[in-house]
């Protein structure tokens, strides 16, 4: 196991240096995707499949697409500059200070490290009892114990989507430019390549299917609303990259996506207000307990609450990612 880990770590460091040294921004962005993917591999070895999953979908997938979309608008070459001494020294000294600090840190994988002993060692057991056997403890902590925190995170994602939309909202100047310039600048478009077109069409249903599996299976295995949202959005983005923005907007109209953006957050917060109305505390899912649940094989109110909340997260994240993609793809390159 150590051999695999060391291999990944060496590759991580090499890729990081490569990214820092590259002048061609296209190449740097692609190498950043590789870096993210290697990071996801290491997270997998560190027993964090949920995070690894998210990093692979977000870091290596959506981030790369967004950066490439930006490069298409701003140009790809960085002006060469020399290695500068003062930043290099600053970085070296900060690094050395941090390395000195690690000498007091608990050892890697040590079962007696403070994090495993305090505040309580039995997270999994406690969650099993209180969540009525929800297998994925990460999901139970994310959606139930720290439900309010996750509501805040969803709100941040929502705000980021709105922010990107506001910054890149079409101004009259650029709409004129769109009318002036024909949409196809180069002769060949993605849709002219037979293999890309056919493979993309074949892949998209499976990507969406997988996204739905991750969404609704998130409490039984790794996954959940955040990952599922990104995966489903990536299916739409793939469609947009191959068949063009107009075709995608016919499938998923802007007005619908903008409403879904708010709907997901409303489902999440609405679950909280529902439990308030039932006489409990905000997001206390135990109050959702109802007698029909045993007939429909829902083990407890906690399961239902986590299901609803994850659905809200999934809808919002999907809508935000698609909105951001629309905002970037809808702009024409500046002259």
């Amino acid at each position, binding site marked *: 196991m150590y051999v695999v880990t060391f291999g990944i770590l060496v590759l*991580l*460091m090499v890729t*990081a240096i490569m990214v*820092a040294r590259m002048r061609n921004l296209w190449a*740097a962005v692609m190498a*950043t995707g590789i870096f993210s993917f290697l990071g996801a591999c290491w997270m997998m070895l*560190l*027993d*964090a*499949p*949920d*995070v690894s999953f*998210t990093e692979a979908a977000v*870091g290596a997938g959506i*981030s790369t697409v*967004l*950066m490439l979309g*930006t490069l298409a608008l*701003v*140009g790809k070459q*960085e002006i060469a*500059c020399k*290695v500068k001494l003062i*930043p*290099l020294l600053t*970085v070296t000294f900060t*690094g050395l200070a*941090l390395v000195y600090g*690690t*000498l007091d*840190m608990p050892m*890697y*994988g*040590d079962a007696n*490290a403070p*994090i495993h002993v305090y505040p309580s060692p039995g997270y*999994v057991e406690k*969650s*099993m*009892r209180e969540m*009525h*056997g929800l*297998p994925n*403890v*990460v999901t139970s*902590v*994310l959606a139930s114990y*720290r439900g309010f925190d996750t509501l805040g*995170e969803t709100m*941040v*994602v929502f*705000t*980021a989507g709105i922010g*990107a939309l506001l*910054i*890149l909202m079409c101004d009259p100047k650029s709409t004129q430019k769109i009318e002036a310039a024909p949409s196809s600048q180069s002769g060949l478009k993605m849709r002219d390549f037979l293999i890309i077109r056919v493979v993309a069409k074949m892949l998209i249903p499976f990507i969406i299917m997988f996204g739905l599996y991750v969404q609704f299976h998130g409490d039984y295995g790794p996954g959940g609303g955040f990952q599922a949202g990104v995966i489903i959005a990536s299916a739409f983005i793939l469609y947009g990259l191959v068949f063009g923005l107009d075709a995608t907007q016919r499938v998923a109209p802007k007005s619908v996506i903008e409403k879904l953006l708010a709907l997901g957050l409303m489902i999440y917060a609405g679950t909280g207000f529902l439990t308030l109305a039932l006489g409990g505390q905000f997001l206390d899912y135990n109050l959702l307990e109802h007698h029909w649940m*045993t007939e429909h094989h829902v083990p*407890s109110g906690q399961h239902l609450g986590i299901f609803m909340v994850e659905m809200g997260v999934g809808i919002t994240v999907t809508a935000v990612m698609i909105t951001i993609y629309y*905002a*970037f793809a809808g702009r024409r390159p500046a002259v």
Partner: protein
Amino acid sequence: MNTVQFFGLFNYWVVIFLMMVGFYMIIARHNFIKKVIGVNIFQIAVILMYITMGKIHGGTAPIVKSEIAQHFAHHESHEDDSHEHTSSDGSKAEEHPFVDTTVYSHPLPSVLMLTAIVVGVGTTAVALSLIVRIREDYGTIEEDEALAMDRAQS
């Protein structure tokens, strides 16, 4: 410096190295895209640091086996409404309460970092859209050129 210490702390050193590469890109590069990439690398390094702290030797991912999870689900739901079921299929389990001997890595860092990644892509998107606007107004994505234009105007 002995081998035990090296194998116990190497994860932090790798993380610090990655962090410093990101930091260098933020402070030394003038290109805005490169700066955003630097922020991303820094962020992944921080996330990795949290995740390595949750790791435990011989542990596994904090997802409980379905047999054990099933036991908890049935045990709880049948307890309040009927005792017939408990006596028919859960009686053995009642006598010997389930003991899960698996060692699980810590779930909490995973939870915190999972949301951090998604928020990270949100902030990246906002940063990139700002870069697009800067390019449209200034005609450049190099920080020093944009600053020089600002100074020339004032």
